[in-house]
């Protein structure tokens, strides 16, 4: 009997440890995704920006940030990174109205990272909003499911179409509405 209980305890402990190990190793890959872009940094950003503006559902550009610049200003070299920020009041509004999930404003506005790696290729990094949404109940889960669909449409890039110009927000625009004029909810 003692052996049986001991075996179960050890088995459960090993199972938990294995699950923990797997979760720790896989969580990063599940929470975030990256894919290679066939275009240059600027063209990738411009095409995503154009898609966001054309997406409807209240989506608007919110800003464009350059996280590598402060590093360069301090004298260091890092490969370029651009963060496209976009927001939709249609999706952000209900979440911001609900006290229990208002802390998710931390994830607003939505971000898409475009960056180079040392292999010379341009990558697009996105957050797995669908997976994250599932942790926070039906309101957030359903909203994030819609966000994921739109997010996929942002990343559809047709090489037969000419490269649009990159939209560079004017200094000071970062906190205001985007080009669509409807991002005030963020």
């Amino acid at each position, binding site marked *: 009997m003692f052996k049986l209980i001991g075996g179960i305890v050890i088995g459960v402990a090993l199972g938990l440890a294995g699950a923990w190990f797997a979760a720790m190793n896989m969580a990063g890959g599940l929470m975030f995704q990256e894919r290679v872009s066939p*275009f*240059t*940094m*600027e*063209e990738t*950003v*411009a*095409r995503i920006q154009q898609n966001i503006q054309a997406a409807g559902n209240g989506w608007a550009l919110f800003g464009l940030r350059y996280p590598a610049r402060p*590093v*360069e*200003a*301090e*004298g*260091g*070299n890092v*490969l*370029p990174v651009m963060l496209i920020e976009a927001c939709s009041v249609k999706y952000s509004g209900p979440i911001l109205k609900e006290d229990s999930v208002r802390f998710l404003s931390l994830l607003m506005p939505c971000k898409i990272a475009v960056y*180079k790696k*040392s*292999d*010379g290729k341009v990558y697009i990094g996105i957050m797995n909003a669908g997976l994250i949404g599932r942790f926070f109940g039906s309101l957030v889960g359903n909203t994030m499911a819609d966000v994921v669909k739109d997010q996929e449409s942002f990343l559809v890039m047709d090489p037969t179409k*000419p*490269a*649009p*110009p*990159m939209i560079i927000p004017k200094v000071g625009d970062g906190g205001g509405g985007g080009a669509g004029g409807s991002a005030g909810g963020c």
Partner: protein
Amino acid sequence: MKLLSFILALGASLSLSAWASESFTPTLTDKLPPPKSTADHSKFKELQAVFKTGPEVTKACLACHNDAAKQVQHTKHWTWEVVDAKTGQKLGKKNIINNFCTSTVSNEKDCMACHAGYGWADKSFDFTKEESVDCLICHDSTGTYRKLPGDAGHPIYERKEFPAGSGKFVDPVDLQKVAQKVAMPSRANCGSCHFFGAGGDGTKHGDLDSALRNPSKHLDVHMDAKGLNFSCVNCHKTSQHQVAGSRYEFDASRTGKPQPQGKFDGNPASCQACHGDKPHKESLLHAERLNTHTDTLACQTCHIPEYARSNVGTEKVWDWSTATKMGPDGKPIFVKDSAGRRAFDSKKGNFAWDSYLMPEYRWFNGKLSYKVIGDKIDPSKAVEINHPEGSPNEPGARIWPFKVHRGKQAYDPELKNLLIVHTAGEDHTALWHNFDWPKAIETGMQTVGLPWSGKHDFVATEMSWPITHTVAPKGDALSCTQCHGANSRLKDIPGIYLPGLHKNEWLDLAGWGAALLALIGVLIHGIIRACVPCRKPRSKQ
């Protein structure tokens, strides 16, 4: 024992001090900006005249600097010609073809905006005329001296629209003001041509663009405007107007100790001239490991991990085959890419640009062999406009980083040579004026005095540019795994064994065998220790 320790310590300190003395540490004097002139040129009566033309200014300069023009006339900046001492081949902008604008011949009026002279409009230019030397292009300190394409090297004398039809106007240069404010050349002086080679900022070199006018440390540790603040002539030491350091006289593998500035016995425009060929000074073993790399790698290979490291970027591709294509309304069009750089121009074809680019690596002994005007080509493969010479076993060769500019340009499919195209000008045969390839080629080939079959097509070409500017801070040099790893940057380089990338079965077997033997030894030792419990207790002292 103490004696042995003393001898070892003495030996170590001596070797350390000898090793440390090989590195040149910049002194305070080296960090200071160049000294101001001892003469206030605005007070010279020769320079208080009203100058109507550039040559008039030069005459005034020569009144005091009476040998200056003769000196300049012996430089590449004047002749645009270099003769290869070994082969006798004539090189320089006057003789080679590139895969950007392709050739200066028949296009002098435009190209000579970057000539250190006035009036080179065609082959009748008098290279002996001293007042034709342009002093101001290198010595203007006002930043207002400007020469435009189309004026054969003369500065702007009258207000004019530029580019034509753009609605933008440029004012004439105040020659008196510029002449009274001459100074030693700054980065902006050299950059007024070398940053804008091939007709646009950052187009040609990949490691030279307008970001170097006022760079921060991350972009160039030497030119850092708030740090060492080097100007070009700090390394490109100049004597009698001869500027040291050129891709035609490249020092790819300088060896020996560093030499203080002003005492160079060779090309001062090399890293080793100041740093020596054993420059690393960190922990002894690590430094020694890094220093052994200098027999194989150029300094630039590790210390310029990417080139075009600014928003300016650089041109990667110029495809002339699409030039003369018009917009839907039959008029010339100009299209920019997402970053606002040129992507298509009916005059010039398609372009591709990028920034933060990983170099391509080649063995290089300092010699670039060129295709010059009239040379035969093999159009079945990409034509190397220039080829970096060098091989793995050559003592003077190192692995160097390059920007490789690719393009398509006109060639004669019957005579198998690259064609000279008369692109610039307002006459009826200029390509950029009438968009007619045959007329433009006919004029270009007539000007250079070579036959043309009457046919033209386009061939893929490559041109290699050694990367040597924009040295990053030492902390940003390539890490070990960027070469010694599965995705090594040097994986296509022949003739080297790279641990971490390459495998040798016998070496691996020996390594694993040694590890196995060590493990067996440890196990045996452990078993013996476990099976022999009756060790003598240590006697209490």
